């Protein structure tokens, strides 16, 4: 699919008609990804296949590991080797990865994990859609942490948001999840890739102090420390144990408080900068639909139909799922009489909306348990129901 681009072959500038999975791969390449470690799993395998084709041409490396645990460990290693790295998987693979995602969070390692969601639990519906890994993306690994998960609703966004995931992971130094779903991954749409110079690409901040003075986990006001990587003479010390500013293990309540507070706060305090939402016809709405991913497409169709009938309804589309837009939901709860959440799970985002609405408005989930998407008519029926 990629058009020839002699100057920057990593950016396939031009117009394409392609799938969400390929778009996510191209977005990652455009962001500067040079290492992919992965393991085949439906419905994400096309991302690995595309990376296997494209990476070697741009002096990148593709390694198909023996499982998802090795894949995530491998991309963490590659990130410390100084390159942008990623993996792609689906629910069962993500389940295997969560321990090492925790290592990435604790050691503040930038990388991107794409989860093309299918129906679960367990093997579930390998070839059919689910949106059931929302909570897993937030709480999958043990311990206290804040994380970032982003959910695209169309093929263009798979490209744009994959790139955004890399930018966020590099800026805030953590593993970021691109939470796609089977339908987005496999549907074909128009994709426009701009020239490289029009893309915003962020790379990790590097230390400026000499190695003998450098404290690898000492952060400035941004709460994100600059990142020295292997081979630069900084003799980095990286451990999943609670560590002090030198990176040395420090197994005390004080060190734990300091370290864990900071890795949480660097996201909490920058929430406003991170969160992306789409508001559609919400200004005068009395009913709000909150949705994301594939479900948001049908929700938008339902809003259009309802508006034609004169119903004051709008859509809040969560592009960023984590950190959760609590303030926006709180504000919405003041404005509307009802919030409807169509989602392909048994109430994961609904639970969050209930929490953030503080009981100020009626919150109702419209659940599909996986395998099928909502139709606009079904959501419209829910809007019209009193």
């Amino acid at each position: 699919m990629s058009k020839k681009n002699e100057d920057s072959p990593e950016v396939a500038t031009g117009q394409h008609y392609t799938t969400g999975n390929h778009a996510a791969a191209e977005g990652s390449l455009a962001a500067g990804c040079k290492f992919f470690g992965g393991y085949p799993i439906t419905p994400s395998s096309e991302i690995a296949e595309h990376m296997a084709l494209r990476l070697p041409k741009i002096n990148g490396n593709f390694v198909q590991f023996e499982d998802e645990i090795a894949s995530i460990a491998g991309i963490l290693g590659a990130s410390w080797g100084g390159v942008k790295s990623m993996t792609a998987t689906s629910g069962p693979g993500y389940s295997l990865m969560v321990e090492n995602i925790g290592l990435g969070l604790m050691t503040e390692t930038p990388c991107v994990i794409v989860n093309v969601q299918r129906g679960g639990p367990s093997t579930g519906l390998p070839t059919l859609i689910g949106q059931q890994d929302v909570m897993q993306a937030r709480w999958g690994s043990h311990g206290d942490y804040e994380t970032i998960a982003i959910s695209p609703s169309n093929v263009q966004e798979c490209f744009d948001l994959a790139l955004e995931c890399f930018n966020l992971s590099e800026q805030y130094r953590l593993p970021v999840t691109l939470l796609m779903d089977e339908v987005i991954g496999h549907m074909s749409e128009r994709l426009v890739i701009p020239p490289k110079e029009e893309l915003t690409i962020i790379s990790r901040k590097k230390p400026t102090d000499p190695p003998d003075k450098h404290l690898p986990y000492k952060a400035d006001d941004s709460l994100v420390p600059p990142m020295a990587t292997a081979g630069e003479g900084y003799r980095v010390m990286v451990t999943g144990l609670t560590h002090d500013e030198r990176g040395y293990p420090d197994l005390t309540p004080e060190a734990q408080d300091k370290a864990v507070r900071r890795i949480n706060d660097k996201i909490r305090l920058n929430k406003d900068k991170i969160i992306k939402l789409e508001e559609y016809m919400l200004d005068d709405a009395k009913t709000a639909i909150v949705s994301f991913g594939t479900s948001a497409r049908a929700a938008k169709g339902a809003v259009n139909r309802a508006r034609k009938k004169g119903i004051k309804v709008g859509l809040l589309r969560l592009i960023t799922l984590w950190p959760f837009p609590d303030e926006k939901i709180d504000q919405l709860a003041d404005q509307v009489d009802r919030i409807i959440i169509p989602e392909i799970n048994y109430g994961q985002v609904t639970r969050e909306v209930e929490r953030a609405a503080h009981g100020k408005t009626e919150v109702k989930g419209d659940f599909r348990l996986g395998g099928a998407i909502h139709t606009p008519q079904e959501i419209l029926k829910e809007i019209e129901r009193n």
Partner: protein
Amino acid sequence: MSEEEEFQLIESDVHPLDGYLREGRIPHIFCPACSLGSVMNIIVEAIKEAKLENKKVSVVSGIGCTGRISGYLNYDSFHTTHGRAIPFAIGLGVTDPERKVIVISGDGDLFAIGGNHFIHAARRNADITVICVNNFNYGMTGGQVGPTSYKGQYQSTAPYGAVEEPFNLPDLAASCGAVYVARWSALDVRRMKDSFTEALLKKGFTFVEVLGSCPTTFGRRNQLAEGKKILEYFHEKSEIQHGADTKTVGISKDSKIIVGKFIDIEDKPTLTDNLMAVQRMSKAKGK
């Protein structure tokens, strides 16, 4: 100066290798008469002997007593999750073909929870040197039976003696494709240093098993409660057989312990070689 003082050792507070250790991290956490300190010492000696550029050396380890070694060494060092040191090291290694990545971890980490990664790394001839300190049990968690515990060995989760067959580590490594395989006991410090040096200078998947002394959780339960008794046991039982058929080097209760360099293969393409070849092919194909 009195006559008595003259015959004393010279007191010092700095060791010549202190610069290769993280400042302020010694004393380490290892028990008295645990051989992990010796292995750490010898790794540093071997890196010096191999004349590797310090900047280009990375040490990766998993979890467990041996896993703590990375954190003491003053190189780029990575203390990862249980069992996952090898895939982490592969990712780290492929980002710079000049980088020498050393994985140092224990038998439980590398061969129980991480066994799958070990065999695949050997199969793909990843450019890493894996040093396994085999102490025959899980030390840090209190002495549970492990994948290298021999039949009849007493451990906290084998109160009636271990009943399963242990792994023969050199044979496993050799059969999966490792290009260099050696085994030494913790007593064979000089030969261990030579082996580490050879392994470090070789491209591809190189493996050295070190039989470590763990007096606290292994020895205490198996009539070897002191480090010196374990070393004495190694001294008494070990026999050097370079080039021995790895099938014959399994360890059982009271058996001979065959040590030596078993495998040293030349010119086998490594993972890095293969990835470079793929890069060349992809450009030639122009697809």
